[in-house]
C-alpha cells in the first residue's frame, strides 16, 4: 500500500479526525456514548454504512446530476441503513434491538454526507472505500473513549459489568450523574481535543 492510500486510513485517526478536528458527527457522539456497548455497535454500523455508501457514490459519481446529488446521496445512505437494519432484525435480533434507536442517527450523521460530498464524488471506488473506513475508525475511536469514561464514572461499570466495587459505595462513593447527561460528552470531547492539540503542534492555528 502506498503512502498516499495509507494516509487515507491514518489521517482521520488523528490529523483530520472527523470529530475532534472537523467537528462533524458530534450529535451522535452525545447520544450513544452513555454506555460502551451501544457506542461500539454504532461505530460498527457507521463503518459499514460509510464504507459502502462511499463506494456506491464513487461508482455513480460520473452519472449523478449535480443538482440532485445531495438527494441521491441521502437515498443511498438511507437504503443501506434500512437494509442493514432489516438483516440484523432477521439474523441478529439482539444487536438490532441495541441498534434500533440509532438507525435514524446514522442517516443524519454529518460525517456520512460530508465524506460522500467531499471525497466519494471526486475519487475512484477503492480510495473512497479506504476513506470511508478511515473516517469511520476516527469517529469510532473518539466515541469509544468518550463512552469508556462516561460509563465508568456515570454507572460504575464497563460493558455493563460493574467495575467499581460495592465497598466503595459503602464508603459513600456516588456515581456521577452528570456523566450520564449529554453536556458531559461535550466536555470529554473538549478534553480530548485539548490533549490532541497539545500533542500535535501542527493542529494549532498560527494567528
Amino acid at each position, binding site marked *: 500500500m502506498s503512502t498516499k492510500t495509507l494516509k487515507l486510513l491514518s489521517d482521520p485517526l488523528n490529523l483530520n479526525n472527523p470529530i475532534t478536528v472537523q467537528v462533524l458527527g458530534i450529535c451522535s457522539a452525545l447520544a*450513544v456514548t*452513555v*454506555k460502551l456497548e*451501544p457506542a461500539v455497535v454504532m461505530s460498527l454500523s457507521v463503518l459499514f454504512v460509510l464504507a459502502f455508501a462511499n463506494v456506491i457514490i464513487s461508482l455513480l459519481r*460520473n*452519472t*449523478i*446530476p*449535480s*443538482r*440532485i446529488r445531495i*438527494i*441521491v446521496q441521502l*437515498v*443511498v445512505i438511507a*437504503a443501506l441503513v*434500512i*437494509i442493514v437494519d*432489516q*438483516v440484523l*432484525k*432477521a*439474523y441478529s*435480533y439482539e444487536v438490532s434491538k441495541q441498534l*434500533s*434507536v440509532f438507525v435514524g442517527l446514522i442517516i443524519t450523521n454529518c460525517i456520512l454526507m460530508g465524506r460522500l460530498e467531499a471525497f466519494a464524488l471526486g475519487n475512484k471506488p477503492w480510495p473512497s472505500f479506504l476513506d470511508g473506513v478511515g473516517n469511520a475508525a476516527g469517529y469510532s475511536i473518539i466515541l469509544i473513549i468518550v463512552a469508556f469514561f462516561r*460509563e465508568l464514572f*456515570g*454507572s460504575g461499570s464497563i460493558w455493563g459489568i460493574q467495575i467499581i466495587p460495592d465497598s466503595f459505595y459503602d464508603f459513600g462513593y456516588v456515581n456521577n*450523574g452528570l456523566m*450520564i447527561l449529554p453536556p458531559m460528552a461535550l466536555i470529554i470531547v473538549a478534553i480530548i481535543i485539548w490533549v490532541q492539540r497539545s500533542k500535535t503542534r501542527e493542529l494549532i492555528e498560527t494567528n
Partner: protein
Amino acid sequence: MDTNGNLYTFIYASVLVIVVAAALSFTALKLQPIQNMNVKNEKMQNILASVHIESTAKTANNVFEKYITKSFVVNSKGEEIKGKAAFDINLKQEYKKDTEQRELPLYEATLEDGTIKLIIPLTGKGLWGPIWGYVALESDMNTLYGAVFDHKGETPGLGADINKDWFQKPFTGKTIFEDGKLIGIRVHKGGKGAALAANDTEHGVDAISGGTITSKALEAMIFDCISSYKTYLENNKK
C-alpha cells in the same frame, strides 16, 4: 452526455427511486418470516422469564410448551372468552377499546414443583416509546412471583435499565392489593434504598435514578393493566 439536463435529471431520479424501492421491498419481504419468528420467540422468552425460567431463542418454543400449560382470554368481568388464542392477541389494540370490550390474554405456568403461577401481560407508554412486560402472580393473586419489563427506546443507562435484572428482581414478593384494594406496585424516586426509606417494603421498589419518567410510566402501566384483570383476580384467589 449532459448530466445536468432536465430530462436526464428526471429519468435519473425516477430510476434511482424505483431501483432502491424494489431492493428494499425485496429485502423486507424475504426477511419478514424470520423476523416474525424472532419476535414470537422473544415474546415466549419474556413470558417464561417472568416465572424465572431461562430459555434461548432456539429452545423457547419447546420450553414454552412444557411450562405454559394454559393460555386463555378473559373479559373485564373476569369471564373466560372461548375460542380465542391468547398468544395472538395484540394487547395494545385491546387497551384502546372500552374496558367492557377488551379481550385480555392470560397465561398459566405450571412449574417443576407443581405450583401454578398466573402471568399477566402489560403494555404502556414510556418516555420515548412503548414499554411492556409480564408479571407472574402466586395463586393468592396478590403476591408477585416475578416480573420482566422491556422497552423500545428508553434512554440507555437510565430508563433503558428497566429490562435489567437488578431492577426487576426486587418486584418478587411484593403485593399488589392492600386491604382488598388494588394499589399495584409503587416506584420510589431516589435511587437505591428509596423504597426502604419511604417505609414501603410491601408494595414499593426503587426507581432508576435519572430515569424517573420511565419508572413512573412503568408504575402506571402495572396499575392500569392489572386493573383490567381485577375482577378475575378477585374471583380466582385461593
